[in-house]
């Protein structure tokens, strides 16, 4: 890809996405778009911890924390969305810091398993503890949409699906910018080499533990943010929304598209989600096709679709 062409393409794409609701009034498309945005930035978040070479399998649990925090604050304390999203992110970051300081002592498969255990435990707490507060297996319903904002004389209401579309899109753009900046800065370089060889990274003076912890907290906070968007869009959340299957699904998207690039995960999300919508008409056979697509693509392109495309283009030049 010509480096000069890329920003142009991205800007055009952004323009298109921001004006999409003008072209279509279909709730169906808008909803799918929201989910695509949500999963896109969630997968970018997971990619952050994957940069340092680790996979956090408890990722969905941080989404759970974000969701529940905002849900509780808006339903029980009647705080405004614009306040609760920040509190939710802060709390998610705090929990991530505490749990991460323990989890990051492990590496590789052990880290994977430990984060899985932590994640499932958090989910089980949401399911079993203090039903009056947390809603038990039924979860929390009636989560309000964001409160209207008054700017000058203009009051903007956020109680429609289109409003959530824009909120999700804005969050996506923010996460994309952060990821892009991360990749190009010293932090990105450091995390990259930690992911390649963390022993050598330590020998050249990098505090691997600290960096992994920061990466974990950042990654989990993005999940928390995703949880906030999810809660206000669905208006109803339950512990069943945050199992490790969702983390696994994100992983599938990321690996399919290619974890090395930053558009890879987004390509994976978009392609596979559209594919699964398309396959829905085949009923129970949908998942079988889906599984085959994943296996076949990975069998031939294990590094992910985008990495492969990039690799081939470079070779041709």
């Amino acid at each position, binding site marked *: 890809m010509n480096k000069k062409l890329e920003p142009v393409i991205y800007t055009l794409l952004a323009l298109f996405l921001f004006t999409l609701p003008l072209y279509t009034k279909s709730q169906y498309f808008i909803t799918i778009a929201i989910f695509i945005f949500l999963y896109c930035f969630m997968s970018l978040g997971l990619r952050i911890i994957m940069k340092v070479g680790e*996979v956090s399998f408890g990722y969905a649990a941080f989404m759970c924390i974000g969701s529940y925090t905002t849900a509780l604050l808006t339903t029980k304390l009647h705080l405004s969305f614009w306040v609760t999203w920040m509190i939710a992110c802060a709390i998610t970051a705090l929990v991530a810091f505490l749990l991460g300081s*323990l*989890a990051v*002592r*492990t590496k*590789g*498969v*052990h880290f*994977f*398993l*430990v984060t*899985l*255990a*932590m994640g*499932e*435990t958090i989910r*089980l*707490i949401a399911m*079993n*503890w203090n039903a009056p507060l947390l809603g038990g297996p039924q979860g929390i319903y009636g989560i309000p949409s964001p409160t209207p904002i008054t700017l000058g004389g203009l009051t903007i209401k956020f109680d429609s699906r289109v409003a959530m579309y824009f909120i999700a899109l804005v969050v996506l753009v923010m996460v994309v910018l952060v990821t892009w900046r991360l990749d190009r800065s010293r932090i990105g370089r450091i995390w990259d080499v930690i992911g390649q060889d963390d022993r050598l990274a330590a020998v050249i003076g990098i505090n691997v533990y600290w960096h992994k912890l920061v990466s974990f907290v950042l990654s989990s906070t993005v999940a928390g943010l995703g949880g906030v968007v999810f809660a206000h869009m669905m208006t109803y959340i339950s512990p069943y929304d945050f199992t*490790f*299957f969702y983390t*696994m699904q994100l*992983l*599938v998207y990321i*690996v*399919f598209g290619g*974890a090395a690039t930053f558009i890879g995960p987004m390509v994976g999300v978009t392609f596979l989600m559209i594919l699964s919508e398309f396959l829905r008409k085949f009923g*129970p*056979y949908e*998942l*079988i096709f*889906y*599984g*085959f697509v*994943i*296996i076949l693509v*990975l*069998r031939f392109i*294990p*590094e*992910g679709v985008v990495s492969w495309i990039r690799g081939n283009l470079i070779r041709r030049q």
Partner: protein
Amino acid sequence: MIIINGLVLSLTYFLVASGLTIVFSIMGIINFAHGAIIMLGGMVAYYTFTFFGINFYFSIILAMAATAMISVILKRVVFDYFAKFPLAGCIAAVGIGMIIQQGALIGLGGEDKVFVNALPVDLIKMFGITISLDRIIIVLVSFAIMIGMLIFLQFTKAGLIIRATTQEPIASQLCGVNNGYVSAISMALGGALAGAAGALLGALFTVSPYWGESLILKAFVVIIIGGLGSVLGAILGSFILGFVESIGITISGYITFVLVFVLIVILLLLRPKGILGHE
């Protein structure tokens, strides 16, 4: 009562987890399709028992053979290509699990399958407590399988090769061990254990297409506790988890996972690799 429950839980967790840990040590991939394979084992046992009228214990063996074969086929057809890409391999395993589960759903129906009269349902009195006979049988059979596996690993040539490759993969290659052969045997072993788990647990409870998924989580916890890559670790882990849960259930349902969580936290502080784990 605690002891019996503990034993039941421990041994069944062991069956579920040991296959996973063996496959991981040799293939380097966490087989996410493991749950689906367990489910297949349960299905094979169910159908051979219910529709072909085969003796239950024999159907367990059939299930083990079937899952062993399926595992080896999966290895040849899918996993071998991912030797250098463990993460992609794990995702591919997810895909396989999906396919198997959906296939079972479509082909075999989604309702719970009950093994009628496979296990005796009598209650007997032992040591002053009432225990159901079916649990005792499960304990005995699982125990037998576990001992059988340990004997295999310890005393046969194939077992020795597996143990050596688990601990020192490169050194084994230098000694001329054919890695393809070793991984095939370990997949078969892992698959067989999964099949046994499926058949036994299926008889004790029920089998349905998505049942395997929920079991995998427990397997992971076992492996965290006991350490990955070590069969003894799997045994240790399953017993610890089994008994902790058994105690927890007796006290109060909620306590269980809190206990497990605390256990994991303590473990992380002291021995992050699991008690007997190594890479």
